[in-house]
């Protein structure tokens, strides 16, 4: 009895202590309060200061000449015309950078990368030269005057073909290098093989298991697409020998070290400043050629140089994400207990390995792929290969490859459930790591710090009435309606990282904070991280407010200026709170320790008699004998104890003892329109556990943002390539960026399981919802498809692809209630485990190149000999082509030709070589080839043509034409899909003109009419919309 009463009392007293703490947090703007973001005042008033806002006296502008080809040798570069243009200051090529050793640069992944094309180009839109001019328009004009002669090479587009025998060599520079940064290279296009876990034990588990499942899945190439593209302003002071670079960087300090090492300028004379950043999501971690060339240009010219990319440049050349071709396998018991996992990945890294992972982790933290489940035996292997695509492989809003890992395990667990006919929640609950197992040692090497997975999932199931949803799904299905329920119970690994296993270019991945308390009790603090929208200025202030008992409104947070901020590794991988946030708390605690000494001195008591009151110190047991922090701060500058240094500041460099492991349970309900394939996200419920919640509102904002990007990736984003390596869809006309119109409504929830090793128990949260959201959407769509016997469809789940699946199942037709056979799980044994070569993903990143072959017969009302006479005359033939002409004859059978196209508002002029390969009077056949580029150097085309006159008797004949046209570059990327339509119409016009020409040789009214038309020349190409997609791509809303 008595003990019961006591317990009630103690609960009451904790409650009152809690409410007191909440009240204090609200008053100070400390940890736990929903404080409005301090940075928003300037952003919503348009007063942010981004790199492109920076103007400097004498500033000039750089713009790139880029390659239209995915793979080609550079035969020559002629800058004369560009340099002769008034207002142009310089044209830099690899040759100019070579003496400085800057034509190549090291990548974070231990590879190296061309800064400007050195002898060859390895991906479309690769940087070939930079023009520096008085303004950006002049610079852009002059890029078109730089003449680059290419010799095309076969490209490697499909990563599955990359290591084939005889595959083209992408990296000539690596000839004979069989030891890469991450071990042996087994093929000239192989980068690394990285594996982890016990392969033999895993094989054994699989061979003995009652049940195994295997599934190929493609995580397509996507791009973070931040609203602000990348750019910089580089300014070299010749007198002082100092370099200042303002740039869009998530990690300015590392950039300083890299710049100093590359340039040889002492690091103290390199000043890097990352001002406001309009979103990074991993895209702004790396060092891009633009930064380097602008810097060299500034050193050469002694003037500030600005370089800012446009949207298409950003999407097509700066770091992409994912492109993981994965095969997952699970071994389990009949009743769904997972015994083993095997994962095989083929990773497409593009032409250079410029992934931004900690140095020792070529596949990032992919080994978190055992997820939230207690899987005792596992093996994962990743093979990285080169292809002729832009380099990258950054973590798009996730910690190093964690999205891919989370996707594979969360999809596989559903695949297994489906195979067993088991409920997808039940299988998770059955396999979760249990709360009492923490700290948990995973089979692939991690020590999970804390978690309570069953509680999280159960809370979500209850909130959403999971059982009710399943019942509804069943009823709907009987009515022919398609509904899917997706679950995802993810565990993330963030906060890189302990310096014992995490470094970037040899620098340990600690982070830092420096806090100064001014005499009047206001504070300035600086960190080694860099906010890009995460709200650091708000949340770090809250940590300090609580640790120091000072109001956050008087705490200024600064980041990004490497002269003032302490060295840190930057913001990505949700590491700011786990690492710099910890440093902030630790630095504040150092200040508090000193404050305690000052307080003891002021109150003339012993330090041991003092306790922290939340806003200062009070004497234990004598609550009204206290002093607050402003008083102590003042004393720090004029009344310190004997022997103590004045001042009140501290620095902390925090090397985390472990990563943090935030987790969550998500549920998504989708309704699919079977006729159009459109998906409605009816409900999305996200429960996140990121430990201590510093600012619930900022967390919710981060969760909303991450879910929006998860929605984007799962439902629509993709950067495909054609077979020639032309990137398709690198503009916002094709690349899906959801707005508030498309974005579903989010419901958020949380549990709190503090990290035991973080000073305030916080874990990272900026990326959780992206990592967990994507598989949740995908699981929902796949859950809907499971009903019809489909075990897996790849992302993106846009309406077209969903329809395609439904169409194959003949579900897209009326009547409404189709009689759908109930799905019977098939229980085939899984095939042999995959070596990377056997990893075949259903959607390969290929398809044919942007080329077409057209064969047509055109009847002509003239005798065959008349027609042949004209067909032999190259000049006349050319004149029949709308907009085409022969400029000069360069040999017996070679000519230089020109062709102008005007398509709606778009104009382009092609110039190139034409060669007549054969004139065969016997068969009346002409064979010729042509190849050339547009005058802007952004596209190229080649064509071969065979034309034959067939005598049909009675003064009639037929023109039999067959032509093959191939496009590269901008036109191929944006207009290639209309090639057939346009080519057809061009041929038709050609034939019309040709007829006229032949007819003009005759007599009478018709001939007269034909002569008049020949005189006029072929109808202008005004209406021919060679590139209507280009026009629309133009909406590239920057």
């Amino acid at each position, binding site marked *: 009895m008595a003990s019961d009463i006591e317990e009630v009392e103690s609960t009451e007293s904790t409650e009152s202590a809690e409410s007191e703490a909440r009240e204090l947090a609200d008053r100070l703007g400390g940890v736990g309060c929903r404080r409005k973001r301090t940075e928003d005042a300037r952003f919503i008033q348009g007063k942010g200061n981004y790199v492109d806002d920076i103007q400097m006296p004498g500033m000039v502008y750089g713009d790139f000449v880029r390659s239209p080809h995915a793979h080609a040798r550079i035969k020559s570069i002629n800058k004369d015309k560009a340099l002769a243009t008034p207002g142009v200051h310089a044209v830099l090529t690899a040759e100019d950078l070579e003496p400085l050793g800057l034509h190549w640069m090291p990548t974070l992944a231990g590879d190296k990368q061309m800064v400007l094309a050195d002898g060859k180009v390895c991906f479309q839109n690769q940087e070939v030269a930079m023009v520096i001019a008085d303004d950006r328009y002049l610079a852009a004009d002059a890029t078109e005057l730089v003449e680059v002669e290419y010799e095309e090479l076969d490209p490697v587009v499909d990563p599955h073909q990359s290591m084939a025998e005889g595959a083209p060599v992408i990296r000539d520079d690596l000839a004979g290098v069989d030891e890469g940064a991450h071990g042996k290279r087994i093929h000239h296009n192989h980068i690394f093989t990285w594996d982890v876990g016990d392969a033999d034990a895993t094989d054994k588990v699989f061979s003995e298991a009652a049940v195994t499942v295997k599934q190929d899945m493609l995580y397509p190439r996507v791009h973070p697409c931040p609203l602000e593209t990348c750019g910089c302003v580089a300014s070299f002071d010749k007198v002082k020998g100092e370099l200042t670079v303002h740039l869009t960087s998530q990690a300015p300090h590392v950039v300083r070290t890299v710049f100093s090492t590359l340039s040889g300028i002492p690091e103290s004379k390199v000043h890097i400043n990352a001002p406001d950043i309009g979103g990074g999501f991993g895209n702004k971690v790396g060092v891009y050629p633009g930064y380097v060339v602008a810097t060299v240009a500034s050193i050469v010219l002694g003037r500030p140089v600005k370089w800012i990319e446009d949207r298409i440049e950003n999407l097509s050349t700066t770091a992409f994400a994912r492109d993981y071709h994965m095969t997952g396998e699970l071994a389990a018991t009949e009743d769904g207990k997972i015994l083993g996992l095997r994962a095989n990945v083929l990773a497409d890294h593009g032409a250079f390995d410029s992934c931004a992972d900690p140095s020792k982790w070529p596949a990032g933290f992919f080994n978190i792929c055992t997820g939230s489940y207690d899987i005792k035996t596992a093996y994962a292997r990743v093979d990285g290969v080169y292809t002729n695509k832009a380099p990258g492989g950054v973590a798009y809003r996730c910690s190093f490859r964690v999205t891919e890992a989370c996707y594979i395990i969360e999809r596989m667990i559903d695949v297994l459930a489906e195979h067993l006919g088991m409920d997808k929640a039940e299988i998770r609950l059955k396999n979760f790591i249990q709360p009492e197992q923490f700290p948990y040692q995973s089979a692939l090497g991690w020590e999970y710090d804390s978690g309570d997975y069953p509680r999280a999932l159960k809370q979500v199931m209850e909130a959403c009435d999971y059982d009710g949803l399943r019942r509804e799904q069943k009823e709907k299905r009987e009515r022919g309606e398609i509904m899917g329920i997706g679950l995802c119970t993810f565990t993330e690994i963030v906060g890189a990282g302990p310096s014992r296993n995490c470094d970037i270019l040899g620098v340990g991945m600690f982070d830092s904070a420096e806090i100064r308390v001014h005499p009047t009790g206001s504070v300035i603090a600086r960190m080694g991280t860099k906010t890009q929208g995460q709200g650091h200025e708000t949340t770090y202030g809250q940590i300090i407010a609580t640790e120091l008992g000072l109001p956050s409104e008087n705490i200024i947070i600064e980041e990004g200026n490497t002269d003032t901020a302490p060295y840190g590794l930057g913001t990505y991988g949700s590491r700011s709170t786990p690492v710099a946030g910890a440093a902030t708390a630790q630095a504040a605690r150092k200040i508090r320790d000193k404050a305690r000494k000052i307080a003891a001195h002021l109150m003339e008591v012993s330090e041991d008699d003092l306790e922290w009151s939340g806003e200062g110190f009070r004497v234990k047991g004598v609550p009204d004998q206290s002093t607050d922090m402003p008083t102590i701060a003042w004393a720090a500058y004029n009344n310190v104890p004997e022997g103590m240094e004045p001042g009140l500041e501290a620095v902390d460099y925090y090397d985390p003892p472990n990563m943090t492991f935030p987790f969550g349970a998500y549920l998504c309900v989708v309704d699919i329109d079977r006729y159009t394939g459109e998906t409605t996200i009816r409900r999305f419920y996200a429960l996140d556990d990121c430990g201590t919640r510093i600012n619930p509102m900022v967390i919710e904002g981060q969760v909303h943002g991450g879910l929006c990007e998860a929605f984007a990736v799962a439902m629509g984003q993709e950067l*495909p390539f054609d077979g020639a390596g032309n990137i398709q869809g690198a503009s916002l006309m094709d690349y*899906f960026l959801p707005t508030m119109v498309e974005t579903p409504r989010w419901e958020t929830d949380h549990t709190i399981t503090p990290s035991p090793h973080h000073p305030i128990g916080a874990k990272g949260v900026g990326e959780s919802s992206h990592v967990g959201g994507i598989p949740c959407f995908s699981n929902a769509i796949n859950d809907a498809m499971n009903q019809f016997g489909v075990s897996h469809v790849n992302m993106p789940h846009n309406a*077209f692809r969903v329809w395609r699946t439904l169409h194959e199942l003949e579900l897209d037709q009326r009547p409404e209630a189709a009689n759908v056979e109930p799905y019977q799980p098939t229980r085939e044994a899984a095939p042999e485990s995959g070596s990377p070569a056997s990893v075949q993903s259903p959607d390969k990143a290929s398809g044919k190149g942007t080329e077409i072959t057209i064969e047509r017969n055109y009847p002509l009302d003239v005798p065959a000999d008349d027609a042949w006479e004209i067909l032999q005359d190259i000049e006349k033939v050319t004149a029949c082509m709308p907009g085409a002409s022969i400029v000069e004859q360069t040999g017996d059978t070679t000519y230089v030709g020109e062709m102008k196209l005007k398509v709606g508002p778009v104009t382009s002029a092609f110039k190139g070589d034409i060669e007549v390969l054969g004139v065969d009077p016997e068969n009346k056949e002409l064979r010729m080839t042509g190849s050339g580029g547009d005058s802007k150097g952004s596209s190229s085309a080649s064509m071969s043509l065979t034309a034959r006159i067939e005598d049909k008797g009675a003064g009639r004949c037929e023109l039999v034409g067959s032509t093959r046209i191939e496009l590269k570059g901008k036109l191929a990327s944006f207009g290639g*899909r209309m090639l057939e339509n346009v080519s057809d119409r061009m041929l038709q016009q050609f034939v019309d003109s040709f007829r006229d020409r032949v007819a003009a040789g005759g007599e009478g009214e018709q001939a007269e009419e034909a002569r008049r038309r020949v005189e006029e020349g072929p109808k202008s190409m005004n209406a021919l919309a060679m590139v209507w997609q280009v026009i629309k791509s133009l909406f*590239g809303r920057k």
Partner: protein
Amino acid sequence: MYAFGYHRPTTIDEAVTLLGQSEDASAIAGGQTLLQSLKQRLAQPGELVDLGAIKELSGIAVDGRTVVIGALTKHNEVALSSEVRKAVPALADLAGAIGDHQVRNVGTIGGSVANSDPAADYPAAVLGLGATVETNQRRIAADDFFIDLFETALEPGELIKAIHFPVPKRAAYVKFAQPASRYALAGVMVAETGDGVRLAVTGAGACAFRVPAMEQALAGDFSADAIKGVQVDADELNDDIHGTPAYRAHLVNVLARRAVEAAR
């Protein structure tokens, strides 16, 4: 963007003269297509003739049987006009589904129709409602106006002054947006007019086109079921990363039925 000359005439005659003075002059209305082409350096007009100050090109007039919309009228003016909404709700709906507010506040009906983007919405209305395009030289029936990809009956230097839409008995426009651009992946305008049923498709082919087989089926029985089995030929339809010709052909049928159901 290349350098160009800029003119802002106040009368149509002045505009036509300016356009005739140089070979590579281009009219600009809302600029929602042209400006993007300029920014990407795909268009290089020597002179831009801004139609924005020509007052007589703007405005909406409804006389009971016809809705006349000036070429320079913005999409949002049409979408938010209570007169248009009363006379031809389908037309107001269509205008309101173009792009986003920023685009609708600047883009014009004349620019959209003159441009004849295969995925633009207005061409479906012009063709589906049997409108007449009035230019500074003549009147062109919708059936003669759209010729091919970005190709219309307009001659060089010919400017659209207004579009005359006859008020239909009932009509509806149903659009299926391409997810990234939000232009029409396919869109169908169906109308029961004084001259019978008209059904026009945009987004699916090289330019807006009518579907006679559906029109005939609907003439006898204006119901979704009447066109259940009427498919358009996928062969001629557009193919891109957002949808195959087969998908577009399928969508045309689905959207047409939905449009018939929604017609009012």
